[in-house]
């Protein structure tokens, strides 16, 4: 709507034209009346002063910048009980967040922080260690809105944390663990352009594959009698949180 220009200017010494005066108050003509223009037709560039400033009190709360977090405190263990069934990925409670985004966002940044430790024995029992880089048995991925594919570039793995121990002499008589040394806090992140309005969720998923049974083939250092029940891979998730920041 253009600038308000009142169509009727009464003149002294003349009879007041009520019909014309009505047009000043209300008219469907563009820019003719104070009532009509103010009813949803005020425009930033034509009706507002150059001295007009947008202050925070004028903004609808959290409309142009929005942030939210969630988290959990208690420790939780993840153990896959079925041999060879470890490609199932599970959401880690607390390391995920669901939020309602009222408006589309130019920038959405998700951070997921968590502390973890794990037992993972050597892997690739039948693999040739010289040529076959292990497919790690403990993997995390990030997901947005339960998409089929994880966030690219954010798959993380866990190295071995249990080793045959030199304590006690030879042959090896105990397992040595490096869990504390490897205990990690990780703060992962990903971002999204132009995320639509609506409900969204971001999550960390964990895969704990069990394939380390009966390790007998890779030299004396690691040799075990067949049938000895070996350590099951186990991940312990401790304090974790998830945070989203959306910006218009």
């Amino acid at each position, binding site marked *: 709507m253009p*600038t308000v*220009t009142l169509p009727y200017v*009464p003149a002294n010494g003349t009879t007041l034209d*009520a*019909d014309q005066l009505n047009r*000043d108050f209300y008219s469907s003509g563009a820019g003719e009346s*104070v*009532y009509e*223009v103010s*009813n*949803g*037709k005020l425009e*930033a560039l034509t*009706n*507002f*002063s150059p001295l007009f*400033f*947008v*202050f*925070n*009190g004028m*903004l609808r709360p*959290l*409309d142009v*910048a929005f*942030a939210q*977090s969630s988290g959990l*405190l208690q420790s939780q263990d993840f153990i896959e009980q079925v041999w060879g069934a470890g490609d199932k990925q599970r959401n880690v409670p607390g390391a995920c967040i669901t939020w309602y985004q009222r*408006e589309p966002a130019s*920038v959405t940044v998700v951070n997921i*922080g968590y*502390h973890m430790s794990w037992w993972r024995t*050597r892997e*690739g029992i039948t693999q040739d260690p010289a040529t076959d*880089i*292990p*497919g790690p048995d403990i993997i995390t991925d990030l997901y947005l809105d339960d998409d089929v594919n994880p*966030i*690219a*570039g*954010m798959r993380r*793995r866990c*190295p*071995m944390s249990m080793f045959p121990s030199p304590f006690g002499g030879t042959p090896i*008589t105990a*397992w*040595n*663990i490096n*869990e504390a*040394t*490897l*205990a*990690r*806090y990780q*703060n992962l992140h990903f971002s999204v352009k132009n995320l639509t309005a609506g409900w969204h969720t971001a999550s960390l998923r964990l895969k704990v594959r069990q394939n380390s049974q009966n390790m007998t083939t890779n030299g004396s*250092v690691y040799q075990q009698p067949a049938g000895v029940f070996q350590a099951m891979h186990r991940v*312990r998730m*401790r*304090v974790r949180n998830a945070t989203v*920041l959306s910006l218009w």
Partner: protein
Amino acid sequence: MSTIFPPRAFKGAEIVDPAWLDKTYQPIAEKVYGRINEQDIDGGAFDIANVYMADNFWSYDKAAYTNKWLNAGAQNPGFGSSVTPVTADGWFKNGTVIDYSIAWQSVSALTLNITTGEDVLWIVGMTQYASFKGTGSTLASPTAPSTDEARVQFAIRIDGAIINETITGSSFFPDPSHQMLYKATASSDNYDYRHVRHVQNCEGIGGAAKPVRLTYAAPVVEGDHLIEIVARRLPQGDGNLDNEPSAGAAGIGSEIRLYNKQLFVLTCNAYGDTVSTLAASGVNAFAENETLSQASLFTNRLSVIASRMNTLLSQNVERGALRRTHLPRAVNTFDLKSISDNDPRTYTQIYDSFGNATAWEPVRTGSGTYLRVDNGGAGWNLNTTQGWLIVMANVHLWDAQQTTATVRASVMGCFTIRIWDGASFHNVMGGLTEVYCTNDAFYLSGPGGVTPKAELDFAYEDVPLFLAVDTAALMADLGTNTISYIEVSIAGWRGNCNGIDNLKTNGGFLSAWIQER
């Protein structure tokens, strides 16, 4: 106030009653002088110049969209700096020591005193720790479960209250563990995993040198607030000091130092309080016996309302009147990049061997795709796009291996955020974004001189990076207003060991934007 209409229309032969004129003026005068709301404003955004920026003009000084605070300090001298001795001790200088105490303690430069409205705070803390045996003689290099000496935790603290969800470890400790259940002594011919020798502490971060980034969003009430990144040390499981020099001797303890610290707070405006004092309308009711004239009817009343409607001011708008559709974007220079290799058995890149000199190179995939953003090819002009540059990144450090070293902490993967201005690289803000990550995984544990494992295992570390900087400060640092691209760069450090061979990454994510408002 929503849509309104004149209470009545005047009739052609009507003798106009001033009382009815008052009733007709009053609703629109009231609206235009302070009750303009979201329904009154058409679509189409205000110019970004109209968005108020904090300028210390108002007594309660807050910008319209967001406010930004940063504290930073205690930088490492920077990769490649000449250090003597060429050891980890020489490498890390001037860090902030975390006392060996289980009480949460403040850290210099990781504190912020801010004043907010009823806002939501987006908090990012970033630092780098290094763990030393004793008091700084050797970068800690745990070789046995009994020397898990780092055991440090960090957390975000707001107004003295720890945000428990941000603790980088166990909220309660000792944390009951499987090891506790299976604590036993191995016997001959017993290979059962349950017979682990040592009970380990896993309640804090391990490793000799690691970057740490904390993030959280928390609502706060209006007023002054103290935002902190705090730290504490956890005791060893047996209550003794760690790092025993020999069996039975007292431990010499350990020391944690922090470097390259940043604490950034972005407030998201929730319930803003800054609305200017309402201006008097200047449109008065007709006085008794006031003459109806062009001046009294039009010039002093109707025209005043119309003029104000053409030049609306801040005080004419109601609280909460503006929605996103009315407003310019807070961010218009956002770019992101992720790189990864699909085959989990491959790694991104074997980087060049390195010594102790600066040798940064871009993190990349095996096919040469860089972890780099350039704002869609346009780069960033810091003169025309002002605000705060915020960069966040994660890199998967696949491995950093020193094939001949017997001390794992002697090698580190080093990362930084670099800016290319079209002519040269800048390791921004004096190396503030540099982080260093030791590989705690590649060497077989055990103090008994056990030979390295026959097969390789890998570091598999995640390396977080962060930068928040005012564009004015960044321009001063760069010496130019031009950013062609921003990238994550990698280099290695080998201390006084020779022959590092394997420095690899696989995957990463980089986000960068300028928070204009």
